[in-house]
């Protein structure tokens, strides 16, 4: 028997055979970005539907968190950069084919917009608030006049931001677990659900919680549907995709994924929300906290597992 030795030359530290470049910063950012998108979307939606009075937490209180979530997320993104001083170069170009470009520009618009939105409600949320300078008051009055237009912008940008958190991963065609078009919608839906959980936690109105819980249940159902179809799609594809799905179906991420994401992060909080809608007494922070933890774990698992999957052997 004649043996041949192959040396592939494919040994690039941290890139090949396994990607090992994205750590906690990316999933944390994806989580905060999705959460912010969820809150902004519903703040915009219920403003356009003229429900500001009934949905106070959605329109006024929860959006106060958005600038903080976005800034913290951006700090995490910044920490992840290798050449941090060159981040501004993202803003010297617009590339429609690059999700990073989309994300960078969306964040550029959405962050100040979310701040303006929160600022316009400062006096309603904190009655003793004083802007100190008259020109700020004038700017705020100007913003308040254009709230409806802002609501539309918030909603549209929130959807782009939410989808982008998923597309950022799915644009990596060299990683089979990420390279699926379901990821964009899945991350959007999951972000909406975490946003809703946050608003429900903050809301003091029974009516508001009821409306939001119902929407959240739909989102949880859609999310489960998308996850199942993502796995089914992998299993029906080529060997590398099947192996990617196996990470969740018996492989090393099985327990974390099924226990903390599917059961404790989606199904169990959904049961609690259904019970609450039926009149049982449920401390509202429990399902909300579970959904938030589930969403965070989901992003950690997807980022971590995706880096392990690969095409070439």
């Amino acid at each position, binding site marked *: 028997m004649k043996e041949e030795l192959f040396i592939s030359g494919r040994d690039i530290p941290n890139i090949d055979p396994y990607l090992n470049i994205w750590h906690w910063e990316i999933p944390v950012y994806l989580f905060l970005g999705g959460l912010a998108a969820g809150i902004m979307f519903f703040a915009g939606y219920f403003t356009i539907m003229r429900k500001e009075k009934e949905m106070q937490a959605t329109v006024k209180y929860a959006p106060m968190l958005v600038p903080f979530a976005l800034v913290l997320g951006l700090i995490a993104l910044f920490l992840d950069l290798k050449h941090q001083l060159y981040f501004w170069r993202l803003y010297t170009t617009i590339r429609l084919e690059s999700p990073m470009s989309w994300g960078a520009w969306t964040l550029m618009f959405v962050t100040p917009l979310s701040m303006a939105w929160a600022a316009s409600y400062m006096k309603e949320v904190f009655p003793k608030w004083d802007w100190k300078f008259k020109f700020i008051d004038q700017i705020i009055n100007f913003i308040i006049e254009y709230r409806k237009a802002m609501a539309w912008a918030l909603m549209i940008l929130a959807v782009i931001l939410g989808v982008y958190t998923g597309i950022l991963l799915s644009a990596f065609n060299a990683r089979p677990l990420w390279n699926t078009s379901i990821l964009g919608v899945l991350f959007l839906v999951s972000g909406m659900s975490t946003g809703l959980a946050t608003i429900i936690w903050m809301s003091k109105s029974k009516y508001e919680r009821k409306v939001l819980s119902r929407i959240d249940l739909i989102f949880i159902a859609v999310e489960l549907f998308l996850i199942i179809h993502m796995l089914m799609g992998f299993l029906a594809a080529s060997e590398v995709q099947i192996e990617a799905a196996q990470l969740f179906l018996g492989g090393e991420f099985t*327990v974390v994924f099924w226990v903390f994401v599917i059961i404790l992060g989606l199904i169990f909080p959904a049961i*609690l929300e259904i019970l609450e809608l039926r009149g*049982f*007494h*449920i401390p509202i922070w429990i399902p909300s906290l579970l959904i938030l933890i589930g969403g965070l774990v989901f992003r950690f698992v997807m980022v971590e597992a995706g880096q392990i999957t690969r095409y070439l052997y």
Partner: protein
Amino acid sequence: MDKKIDAKKRPVYINPYFGGLLLGLLILASFYIAGRGLSASGSAKLAVVEVVHLVAPEHAENNAYYSKFLPEDGSSPLFNWLIFGAIGTFFGGMLSGAVYGRLGKLRIEKSPKISNRTRLIAAGAGGILFGIGSQFGRGCSSGAALSGTSAFSFGGLIVMALMFGVGYLFAYFFRKLWI
């Protein structure tokens, strides 16, 4: 289901004999699914092992007691069915509490005649004794009494008889904590 169950009213529990039957079936299911019985003190023990291993890895690995519970492949001792059983027990209990109206505000359940402080100190002291005892007895009321007796373990039977027997005897001296 009665929608008007109020947490402020007397909480609702199921019939204890029926509860016992369900518990027996649960052990059967646990043997069938996990291949092992239940344990409550085991998850606390593994949590202790994990913390000791985090703080002083060498000490944990050289210690005859802790090293027994450290997985050989270097994974965390918390990656164990007992821990997931404990997580499930927590959320299952919460669900049952929600359905039967026992889930209210966070509160300390105690006799009205003692203070919260007394209750917490007594519970802490009792818990410590129970932890030590369960390790001498190689299992607590779940591990030795329930799972042990269901596997016809004589040791489990002795643990159960003594645990509850001694409990009856000592209850007299500590009755003021409850009545």
